[in-house]
C-alpha cells in the first residue's frame, strides 16, 4: 500500500519536475580552501532553484543544511546538484559538515528577482 502510494507520488513528482526543468533557474556555490566563497546566497522566494555546488579543493566537503534538509558530500574537484525550494521568505543556514567553520545562508527574498 505504502509502496504503491509512494511510486504514484514519485511518478507525479517526476512529471512535475520534467515540466519545470527548463524553467528552473540555476545558482552556483563554490567551495575553495574549505570555505564557501559566497556566504549569503540570495534567491527568489517561492521558486524552485537548482544549486550546483562546486568543490575546487582536492579535499571532500559536505554541503549540509538542517534548515533545508539537504545533505550531500562533494568530493574533491567535482560538482553536485541540489534542488532547493520553493522557499518561503527567510534565512536558511547551511554549512560544510566536514569543516564547521564554513557557514553560509540561503536568503529567500520576497521580491522576485534573483541575486548573485
Amino acid at each position, binding site marked *: *500500500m*505504502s*509502496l504503491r*502510494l*509512494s511510486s504514484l*507520488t*514519485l511518478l507525479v*513528482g*517526476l512529471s*512535475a*519536475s520534467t515540466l519545470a526543468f527548463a524553467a*528552473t533557474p540555476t545558482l552556483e556555490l563554490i567551495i575553495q580552501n574549505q570555505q564557501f566563497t559566497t556566504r549569503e546566497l540570495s534567491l527568489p522566494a517561492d521558486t*524552485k532553484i*537548482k544549486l*550546483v555546488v562546486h568543490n575546487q579543493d*582536492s*579535499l*571532500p*566537503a*559536505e554541503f549540509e543544511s*538542517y*534548515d*533545508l*534538509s*539537504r*545533505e*550531500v*558530500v*562533494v*568530493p*574533491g*574537484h*567535482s*560538482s*553536485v*546538484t*541540489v*534542488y532547493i*525550494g*520553493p*522557499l*518561503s521568505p*527567510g534565512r*536558511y543556514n547551511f554549512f560544510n*559538515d*566536514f569543516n*564547521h567553520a564554513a557557514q553560509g545562508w540561503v536568503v529567500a527574498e520576497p521580491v522576485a528577482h534573483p541575486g548573485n
Partner: protein
Amino acid sequence: MLATAIIVFREVLEAALVIAVVLGASRGIAGRGWWILGGILLGALSAAVVALFAGAIAEAFSGTGQALLNAAILLIAVVMLAWHNIWMSSHGRKLAGEIKAVGAAVQAGNKTLAALLVVCFAAVMREGSEVVLFLWAIAASGGHEFGMSIGGFAGLIAGILVGALLYRSLLFIPIRYFFSVTGWLILLLTAGLAAQAAGFLNQTGLLPALGNSLWNTSHILSQNSILGQLLHILVGYIARPSGIELVFYAGTLVTIYGLMRLMKHKHRPPPVRPGLPTQADISTTNP
C-alpha cells in the same frame, strides 16, 4: 582533534543508535549477534567501497547520484524495518512468553534477522562512508595525523558508548512490555528514515517539496543540539520540515501501524499458559 572527534561521533552515533534499537528488537532470538555483526562488517566494507567511488557516485545522474543512493538505501531499510515490525506484531507475544519461560534464546525468526542485518548494513554503510571521506579529507591536508587518529578513535568509541547505553537502558523495561516498546521505537525510527528519504528525493528534484518550513521549532529545539540530534535519529525530529517529509513520515507510520494491527488480529495469541508464575520482576534477572 576535538572537531574531528565531534564529527566522527555524530556520524557513528546515527548508526550506533539504529543498531541499539535493532539489538533490542531482536532480543531473545538465537544467533542475532552473528547476524547483526555480519551486517555491521558488511556495512563497514561497503562504506570503504562507497568512499572510494564517491567521485563517480556524486557526479552520476547529473550530480544527484549520491542523494539517489541515500534515498534508495533508506527506503530499503524502511521496508526491512516495516517487515520486522509486522512480523513481531504476530510473534512478539509468543517470543516474550518463551523468553520468560526458558530464559534463553528462541530458535525462530531467521527471516527477521536477515531483515535486521540489512538494516544494520545500511546504517553503517551510509554513515561509515562519510566518516571515511571526512577522515581522508583531514589526513590529506597533512600534519594532523596524530590528532586525527586520536579524535577519530575517541569519536568512534563515544558513539558506540551512547549506543550501548541506549541498549542497556532498554533492557530495564520489563519483558511483558519490552516488545511493545521496541515496536514503537522501530515504528518511529522507520517513519523518520522514510522522511529522510523524502528529503533526499526532493533534493534530487524528483519529488516536490509540498511546502518548505511547514513550521519552525529551531528556537525550541535546534537540530544542532545534542537532544535535537538524538531525536532526529530516533524519532525523525525535523525542526523545519517540508510537506513531502511530513507526508512520508505520516504515511509510513499509518501504513506500518495498520498492518501491525491487522496481523495481530489475524494471529490471535494463545491464552497464557496456566501454572506459569507471574514473574513481573523477571526482567531484572534476565539479561
